[in-house]
């Protein structure tokens, strides 16, 4: 047992806090009826995941998680939700009486299966860290080992931008368009 007021003790306390944040955010995201609250839960979950990345010794990835997922993805989703109906009537009906117990037992089964798998697997500890997760290392591997994936992702992004432009242009006419 590690004493609480030591570096390890405090850091495991923070780690537990981060795990709770992640799980809590995920539960809010899946269980709230209002879309906008679900997105907030998602944002909280992402912040927790960023914390997990930090504990996996990759502060760069943690900050990118914040910047991209909280700052861009969540904001985009909220923006899309705002254009929709503010308080839509819940369209999810009450399922039959078996829905609750069935999903509960299936969840238990899945949890038991996964934890049994995790417990029984003989994990091979990684032989040293792959790299130090710093900005330089990430950049180097993106431009050497993973340059193909990197280029493909930029192609996908380009396609997305062009697609958005095409969709946005369709509704516009010469006369009624913006200046």
């Amino acid at each position, binding site marked *: 047992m590690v004493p609480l007021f030591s570096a390890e003790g405090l850091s495991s306390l923070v780690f537990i806090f981060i795990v709770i944040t992640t799980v809590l955010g995920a539960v809010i995201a899946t269980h709230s009826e209002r879309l906008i*609250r679900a997105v907030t839960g998602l944002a909280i979950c992402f912040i927790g995941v960023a914390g997990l990345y930090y504990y996996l010794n990759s502060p760069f990835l943690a900050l990118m998680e914040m910047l991209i997922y909280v700052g861009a993805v969540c904001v985009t989703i909220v923006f899309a939700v705002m254009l929709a109906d503010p308080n839509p009537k819940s369209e999810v009906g009450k399922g039959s009486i078996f829905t609750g117990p069935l999903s509960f037992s299936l969840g238990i089964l899945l949890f038991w299966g996964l934890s049994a798998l995790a417990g029984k697997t003989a994990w091979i500890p990684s032989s040293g860290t792959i790299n130090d997760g710093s900005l330089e290392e990430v950049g180097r591997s993106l431009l050497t080992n993973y340059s193909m994936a990197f280029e493909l992702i930029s192609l996908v992004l380009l396609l997305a931008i062009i697609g958005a432009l095409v969709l946005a242009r369709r509704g516009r006419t010469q006369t009624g368009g913006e200046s």
Partner: protein
Amino acid sequence: MPEPFRVILFIIFVMAFAGLNAAYLVWCERKGAGHIQRRIGPKEVGPFGLLQPIADGIKLMTKQLFLPKGADPLLFMAAPLMVMVPAIMSFMVIPFSETFVAREVNIGLLMIFAFASVNVLGLLLGGWGSGNKYAVIAAARCVSQNIAYEIPMLVTTITMVMVTNTMNLNEIVRAQAGWFFHWHIFRLDISLLMPVAFLIFFVCSLAETNRAPFDMAEAESELIAGAYTEYPGMGFGVFFMGEYANIVIGCALSVILFLGGWQSPIPFHPVGFLGVIWGLFWFLTKLYALIFTVIWIRWTYPRTQFYELLNLSWKVLIPISLFNLILTALQIKIFPWL
């Protein structure tokens, strides 16, 4: 001093700094506005109205925290925090002086941008959670503005990272040691468009912090008080503190990236405790000069139209900042002798 205590001391310092800054920048703003408009500004409470912010604070705290009908209580209450807390986090990596920094993080620059990106989510949820049409309009405007201005800001920042080869804010400042013409804004030998890059960064930080002439989130003449319309008492106060904290961070980043941070204009830097004070003095001087410029701009220029605002970003700032990026890359890699 052991590291944890130093960090805790810094957290206290940073919170006090953020709070006092918010209070006294409001005073500066009102005084500045007064003098620019040939008035006196606050003068009744204390000498030169110096106690006015405290009176304002007490007034805000005594107000009832009223929840408007149709509001989402959770989001309504959480939104001011989502503006304030990330701003305080960002202060942790800002080097006020060479050793006067809470944590020298290797990717400090990225950290500030990561936390600053949460700010817009706070405004958005606050505007939405109020259940008020004006607030929703303001929130929608705020998002398109923030997305538009984040691009040139980040492109300019990437240019600066290319120049300095690091994201450590203290290292960036150290790279600008010596005379004032070693500050990045004057380094035409690195990039011919350096002053333009500074201008783009400054304009973008104005837009990102929702300051006039880009204060679409508030826009009081069109949208009452924009996203803050329904906020009573200290809820509004916390939003305001967050806004001023963000202004300080934006200006501090401009100072660190372009104006030499804590470096003095002459190649003189005393060692030890005096050096800390000397660096602090120069950093705060530059910082407050920039903040004064922000206030000055607010009371000099009218608010832009929303379409003008988006056009400025997409048609002017983004192309220029991309061109600057390419030019800087060329100058660093191909013509290093320039």
